[in-house]
């Protein structure tokens, strides 16, 4: 991998954000709106917190962490869509850029987006609801890192589908992650799922992170088991989707789809 090719793509996206209000809003506006709406719903529901201890803590923490996963996925998929919309894929894939460098650049963009969104959401939560995300403690960082990687897994998978099926599949960029939300057990414990769905949820690393968060906040116990599952699943799935991405690129080159994907 060559660093200059990765930075070229990052710089290209930073140029884009520099003068695009809608793109900047995408980073600030939606997370802010999410937090305001769900934050007030949480405060309302908190009246019943005698039945669900630590409700506010669970819910707002989960909301912020879920948005990190969402933005991580978007960082990958939207960066690809930007190239698609600009009809720039041909320029990129006819250059010495490798698929691994392309992915590395989109992952770097994803980390930048997650960082900005996290700061915005954590700041707003503190300001509006006196909620401090750091209450999760030292486990926050491994949780976030794992959620970012889960976001990459979903992002690379979605990108491969859009590359394979063309622009009409671009709706997946926004909808795919929500397919994972019910089995990520963001706002409820895994045990509330039907047994057959619990088995599917177990294969989802995000579910272990949210379970882990509840373990830390509810019992104050270290979520070692949950984290171990998340790390193993993330590692396996990331290798799998990157291999899938390479296969998709090869398939698209064979079928001549790479030059037609933006049409």
């Amino acid at each position, binding site marked *: 991998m*060559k660093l*200059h*090719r990765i*930075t*070229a*793509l990052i*710089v*290209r996206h930073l*140029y*884009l954000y520099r*003068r*695009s209000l809608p793109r900047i809003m995408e980073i600030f506006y939606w997370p802010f709106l999410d937090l305001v709406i769900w934050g007030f719903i949480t405060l309302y529901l908190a009246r019943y917190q005698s039945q669900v201890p630590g409700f506010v803590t669970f819910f707002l923490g989960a909301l912020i962490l879920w948005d990190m996963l969402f933005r991580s996925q978007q960082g990958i998929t939207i960066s690809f869509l*930007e190239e698609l919309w*600009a*009809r*720039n894929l*041909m*320029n*990129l*894939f*006819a*250059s*010495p*850029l*490798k698929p691994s460098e392309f992915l590395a650049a989109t992952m770097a963009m994803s980390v930048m987006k997650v960082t900005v969104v996290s700061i915005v959401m954590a700041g707003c939560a503190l300001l509006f609801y006196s909620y401090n995300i750091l209450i999760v403690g030292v486990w926050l960082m491994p949780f976030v890192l794992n959620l970012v990687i889960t976001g990459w897994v979903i992002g690379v998978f979605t990108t491969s589908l859009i590359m394979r099926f063309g622009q009409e599949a671009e709706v997946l960029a926004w909808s795919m992650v929500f397919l994972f939300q019910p089995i990520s057990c963001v706002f409820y414990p895994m045990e509330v799922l039907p047994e057959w769905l619990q088995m599917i949820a177990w294969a989802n690393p995000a579910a272990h992170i949210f379970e882990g968060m509840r373990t830390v906040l509810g019992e104050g116990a270290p979520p070692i088991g949950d984290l171990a599952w998340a790390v193993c699943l993330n590692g396996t799935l990331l290798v799998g989707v990157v291999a899938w991405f390479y296969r998709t690129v*090869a398939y698209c*080159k*064979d*079928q*001549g789809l*790479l*030059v037609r994907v933006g049409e």
Partner: protein
Amino acid sequence: MTPPVLKASNLTKRFGNFTAVNGVSFEIRPGEILGLLGPNGAGKTTTIQMLLGLVTPTAGSIHMFGLDLSTHREEILQQVNFSSTYISMPQSLTVEENLWVVARLYGVSNIARRVNDIVKKLEMEEFCGKITRKLSSGQMTRLTLAKAFLTEPRILFLDEPTASLDPDIADKIRSLLKEERRSSALSILYTSHNMREMEEMSDRIIFLQRGRIVAEGTAQEIIDRFGKADLEEVFLKFAREQEQSSS
């Protein structure tokens, strides 16, 4: 005899039952301009896309600088670039920003000087700070040409490079291409539907019809072989033959 910088052997591309390119072989020597001619659907674009590594050949091989494209993609594409009327560049970036990104992508050294040089060479100073979306089609063509020259390639693939340029700029571009070829032994694969331009620019011409090479030689050799008055008449002959065979 100097070895070819590009050697395509028995290049074939099939999409299902349709054969877009069928056993095409050719070479380009250092400093040579090879014209690729043929009616729409003859296989020119697919050939160029295979040479750029965007489409994988069904059969055959591509060697550039003595290296196999299928195994040395990165080293080869570092020394190759292309421009086409049909490509675009990121629309929300300025012309200068786009050139900087391309320069970084190819690891060009001293980017500021190189971008400045190319902007001057292609007379792009007046729209250098403009957002790409706001460029006229002629300015856009000059940007894609600048992108191609910026990386100082050894082989350039130009797909109708002067299609949307006014005659004055088109003439300057042709002069620039000839100058680059002379000064740096730049090899060029050139397509155009302007037959006078093809005669002027090309050292040799390859005619494609239904994915096959049907004629090869200098413009004059091809004209003489088919007993026509000029290259345009030869082109019309092949285009109508292809049209008849498809209907």
